[in-house]
């Protein structure tokens, strides 16, 4: 299916009309093939779709029929690989589209999900998602796709899809990994492999990310026996192949950091000085990292905190105070480092400030719990010192 659609797009057909024509061809196939199976199914679909496209242009009644068929999502079929996937991805991730439209169109046209499935994944009514997709297609009506697209946008969209599914909505996470794997078969660009490795390494840790009560468990406290060691091994192998190309980029670096975390038998065995070196490389990718990639600067501060001490890490967070200083992530990193510095009162305040800014219930609950926990530690500490400092702190 993607191959047939890509074939029409290659002849400068507009996206919406081409997709409709392919859908009509598939409907024809369902009627005709049981009695008259074609020798070359793809050629059959391509020629019927092309004919449909001509019909559609000629007749007004065909337009109405197309709109009826529009309600039907694409049929999930065997996915083709190669140039066609790449062309379709560039098309769905057109830079003029909003991120939410890029995500929706990619899942539908490349991922083979129905509008209903996409709507359910993002908790919006089906009619809303149908409208979002048809507006996106209308935007693409006058675009042609002969020029190579922007791979960085495609990678960002795939990453967005994964993170929408990370945790509860794990179907989307699987879809993102499947699509990224398809992409790596279509391009030798090492960043595509870097992203695939990163997503697999993150996905491998999902089983340990929540406890039996659904509460979030942070990396340092996860039961590492629950990690999917086969998926980690695959991710590391893909990363090594990408790094061998000697063309580093942000996703390869993030994957390398994820691999170093995965490599540690326990959190105390984490190789933080190597992780810090990767973060140095990541920050060095931006000309003005505080502005262009403040998240990298902030996450690097955690590594600095482990290598040079929590106080040094806290000082690093100040670099992005102006950009991120009112965000959950900034307060959460500060809280973590303050806790390591054993400043439990300030850590409690910072966790509470992070909780107040959280956008996800599971994260909010986790941060409130952390705040309560460090405040309790602070109280124990005060009691111990209050009685003359003689009692030992457990």
């Amino acid at each position, binding site marked *: 299916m993607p191959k047939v659609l890509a074939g029409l797009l290659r002849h400068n057909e507009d996206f919406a009309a081409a997709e409709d024509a392919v859908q009509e061809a598939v409907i024809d196939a369902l009627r005709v093939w049981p009695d008259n199976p074609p020798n070359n199914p793809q050629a059959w679909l391509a020629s019927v779709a092309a004919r449909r496209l001509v019909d559609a242009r000629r007749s007004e009644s065909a337009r109405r029929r197309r709109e009826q068929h529009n309600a039907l999502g694409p049929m999930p079929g065997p996915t083709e690989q190669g140039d066609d996937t790449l062309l379709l991805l560039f098309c769905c991730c057109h830079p003029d589209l909003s991120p939410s439209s890029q995500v929706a169109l990619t899942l539908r046209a490349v991922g083979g999900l129905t509008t209903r499935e996409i709507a359910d994944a993002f908790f919006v009514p089906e009619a809303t998602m149908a409208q979002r997709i048809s507006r996106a297609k209308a935007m693409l009506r006058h675009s042609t796709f002969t020029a190579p697209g922007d791979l960085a946008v495609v990678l960002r969209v795939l990453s967005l899809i994964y993170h929408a599914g990370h945790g509860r909505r794990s179907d989307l996470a699987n879809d993102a990994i499947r699509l990224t794997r398809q992409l790596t078969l279509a391009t030798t660009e090492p960043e595509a492999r870097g992203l695939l490795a990163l997503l697999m390494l993150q996905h491998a840790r999902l089983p340990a990310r929540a406890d039996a*009560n659904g509460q979030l468990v942070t990396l340092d406290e996860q039961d590492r026996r629950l990690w999917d060691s086969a998926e980690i091994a695959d991710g590391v192998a893909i990363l090594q192949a990408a790094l061998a190309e000697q063309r580093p980029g942000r996703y390869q670096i993030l994957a390398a950091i994820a691999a170093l975390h995965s490599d540690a038998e326990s959190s105390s065995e984490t190789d933080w000085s190597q992780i810090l070196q990767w973060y140095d490389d990541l920050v060095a990718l931006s000309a003005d990292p505080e502005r262009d990639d403040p998240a990298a600067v902030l996450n690097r501060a955690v590594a600095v905190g482990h290598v040079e001490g929590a106080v040094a890490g806290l000082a690093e967070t100040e670099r992005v105070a102006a950009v991120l200083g009112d965000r959950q992530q900034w307060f959460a990193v500060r809280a973590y480092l303050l806790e390591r510095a054993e400043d439990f009162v300030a850590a409690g305040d910072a966790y509470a400030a992070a909780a107040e800014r959280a956008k996800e219930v599971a994260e909010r609950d986790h941060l409130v*719990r952390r705040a*309560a*926990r460090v405040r309790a530690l602070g109280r124990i500490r005060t009691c111990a010192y209050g009685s003359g400092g003689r009692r030992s702190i457990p």
Partner: protein
Amino acid sequence: MPKYLLLKHYRGGPPQHRPSPPMDQWAPEDVDAHMTFLHEVARILRETGEFVDAQALTPTQTWVRYGGPGAAPVITDGPHPETSDLVAGWYMIDVDSYERAVELAAFVSSEPGQGGEPLYEWIDIREVMD
């Protein structure tokens, strides 16, 4: 079958029956018990077939109004008076009667607070129009 919103508030409503500090100042085990209870409420409502929806809101509130022709929207993002209502989230339920909605609201309000004692939080019940 009438539908009701059971609204929880960050602030506002009648004076607290048993005043309580913010949750991040409770003992960790009390926080756990509280959160476990609220998940349990949603689970029970699903089991009884009365659950419609549950959502939580962030505490950031912004008031916006039309600024007039050609003008930017007018925005006030606080600080708002401490006495004003600030909704924290809700359960939407589909129940047989108003009495059942009251019963469920009281159940939510019995959520454990500090020391495992009930929180006695005021719950705002609003009927959804057909």
